[in-house]
């Protein structure tokens, strides 16, 4: 008992004396404990799965993370928690283009300045797909059909006011006609409705459709990029067909790590290095290749520039595309 008490006393004294030093040490020794990683989407979504694949790889790099799903409000709820968290580097979150879009449109009380952007995790190209049973074999055929039936062709997207929605609108713009935009709560619903012939086309990620494309249930018609995708080499881009899908600036579907603004540069560096190592690991590359997304780990000033470029383009595009119903 006495020994124990003495030990505690000694420890306390030591802590008081070494207090400031210990604090300094803690900072240089970041991370000393687990980092809370807020995924502002449902468990089981693509962001969540990616984080769970990264979790053990990050641990090998010496960064232990705990994944916390805080879904809702197109990611705004979780990112709101990140924005107001302590700037000690123990809270990070997944920023995405979708959340950027609703911030850019002023739909949520959040600002991009509230975040430090750490590193980009993934870039998802988007493609226009139709059912494998549909009569449209090429993009030209589909666009011709849109022209022949102005305002009648349905294009489905997961969610609305996001990048998918923009590209649906850009497809119609390419055909020079109006269309019917059908938003669904998630990519898998769009796949189901496409396969069942409920809607005529959809704007989705290759990662959501690869297996259905391989089995012939879905058919990709065009890529919303300026160059063809490695995974879908025979699918033409919209650019090849003379359609500019980026008339308001570059918009890209991406996910990146964000922390509350005002992070210690050292902590930021640590996070960047460890994430970069995990993102470029063979395991994660393998996962990315299998699921058809691109790893492009931009960080630092380049990422800041990219995020604001995308945010500006989104704000601009919102004025033209997301017209009131």
């Amino acid at each position, binding site marked *: 008992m006495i020994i124990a008490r003495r030990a505690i006393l000694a420890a306390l004294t030591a802590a008081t004396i070494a207090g400031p030093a210990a604090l300094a040490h803690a900072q240089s020794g970041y991370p000393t404990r687990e980092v809370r990683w807020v995924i502002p989407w449902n468990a089981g979504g693509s962001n969540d799965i990616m984080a769970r694949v990264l979790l053990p790889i990050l641990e090998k790099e010496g960064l232990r993370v705990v994944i916390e799903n805080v879904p809702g409000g197109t990611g705004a*709820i979780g990112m709101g928690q990140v924005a107001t968290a302590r700037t000690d580097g123990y809270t990070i979150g997944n920023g995405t283009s979708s959340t950027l879009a609703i911030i850019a449109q002023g739909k949520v009380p959040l600002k991009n300045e509230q975040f430090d952007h750490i590193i980009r995790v993934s870039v998802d190209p988007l493609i226009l797909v139709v059912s494998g049973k549909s009569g449209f074999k090429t993009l030209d055929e589909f666009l011709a059909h849109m022209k022949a039936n102005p305002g009648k062709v349905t294009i489905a997207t997961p969610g609305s006011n996001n990048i998918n929605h923009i590209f649906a609108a850009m497809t119609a713009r390419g055909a020079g006609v109006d269309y019917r935009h059908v938003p669904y709560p998630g990519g898998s619903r769009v796949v189901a409705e496409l*396969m069942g012939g409920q809607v005529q086309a959809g704007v989705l990620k290759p990662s959501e459709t690869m297996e259905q494309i391989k089995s012939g249930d879905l058919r990709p018609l065009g890529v919303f990029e300026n160059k063809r995708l490695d995974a879908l080499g025979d699918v033409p881009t919209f650019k090849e067909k003379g359609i500019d899908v980026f008339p308001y600036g570059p918009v890209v579907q991406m996910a990146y790590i964000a922390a509350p603004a005002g992070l210690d540069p050292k902590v930021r560096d640590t996070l960047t290095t460890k994430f970069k190592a995990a993102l470029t690991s063979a395991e994660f590359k393998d996962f990315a290749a299998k699921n058809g997304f691109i790893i492009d780990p931009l960080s630092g000033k380049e990422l800041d520039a990219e995020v604001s470029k995308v945010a500006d383009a989104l704000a601009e595009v919102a004025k033209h595309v997301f017209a009131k119903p």
Partner: protein
Amino acid sequence: MDILSSLGTALLFELSNPYGLALILFGVVVGFAFGATPGLTATMGVALFIPLTFPLPPDLAVGMMVALYCGSMAGGAIPAILINIPGTPSAVVTTLDGHPMARQGKAARAYGWALISSIAGGLISWLALATIAPALARVALMLGPAEYAATALLGMTIIASIVPGQVLKGLLGAIIGVGLSVVGLDQITGEARWTFETLALIRGIDIMPALIGLLVIPELMNSLFERRASARAPTDLKGMFPSLSEWMGQAVNTVRSAVIGTAIGIVPALGGSVGSLIAYDQAKRFDRDGARYGKGAPGGVVASEAANNGVTGGAMIPLLTLGIPGDTVTAMLLGGLMIHGLQPGPRLFETSGDIVWAIIATMLLANIAIAAVGVVGFRFFVRILDVPRHLLAPALFVLAVVGTYSLANQWFDVVVMLCLGTFGFLLTLANISVYPIVIGVILGPLLESEVRRALVISGGDWSTFLTRPGSAAILAVAVAALVLPTLLARLKGNGAAGGGTPHATAEQSK
């Protein structure tokens, strides 16, 4: 024959692997715990387990996650019966009759029924999964937003059977419920509705906080205000399982509910709670004892639980055959498959047939494990009824608060839960049932978004609901469910059949 041999091989392989069997049992136990604890969901269970399964080979890993999913559905009935808290949204309907049975001292019997029906539901949907899954999944794809909207409306008709003779109060509650579900970002246009520019309201009012608030708080308050100390009859642990003849009386109900559950599970948009709502409604209409539903009729528990567990097998069908998850749990399972290097999609049967069959075999074994875990586990859980009320009520209150918070780590959810709880208590004082509100909250978003989606697709033409054969048929059933009973009663005059409704009203307003 092909199916039998594949399945046989998979089963033999599973049975010859004690390690795998232990993992399935473990998965079911954890699933029970997650299902039985308000605030822990099956989705969280699977999410938490994914890192633990990294070192395992894919078949064992996925098997354990599937076992957890099955276990959680069966576990949800425990708190629903014992303390009127549905452990999962799908168990809401189980509280309707399960909890009144517990109040009559028949908690063990209620759970016996729940367990048997859970397993029966699980097995019937398993049969569909093992035999005709690919065909079923393709048929389900023919349904679109118009049919989903009609199904949501059909689900709404249950309100008429839950609050017999109080149509106006029922409708009022449903409207309040749908109204609550409107808060947040519009599902179609993304516009903020009733959010007052605050982050918390942008998220909207989630189903579980509303559910815990509306069902648990009034129940707690009422139990505290009850004068008679011996309101609860002593719990008889003997006779947990009904006799064979009793069960035969519910056989049709079980099969019908399981089939409804399986069908709803296959459809990618609907989810478990819709299945049990529709199954309960149909059971009540077809049961000669229908008037007793809601006051502790075993048939209500049977319908709800058979449908619930039918949904699990049903939901696996589009997941395994098309790579399309129907709800958040199956989405999480899809993630689990992907993390273990499998590519869920229409080719999964071809590329990883052995693993698919291992999963199917696991589901069969999980249902057997559910029986064992349920019988043993319930003996512990039922002790909760021995706790004196003045201790149980505060403990449950804490559980409601902690459970609500842990759902999404949001304090605002707790505020919503408490506000709706208080509101619900005031309503019960005025003899207004809270269930229509609950149903409005659950079905409102589905009904609204699918109706609007169907209208976008049809270009604003409402006739789409009648010209599409599927939705026309479902709407016809819904209208029949509402109008036929009254019509039949009128035709029979004021005979014995017509007596049910006024009688029920009299009891309600006591």
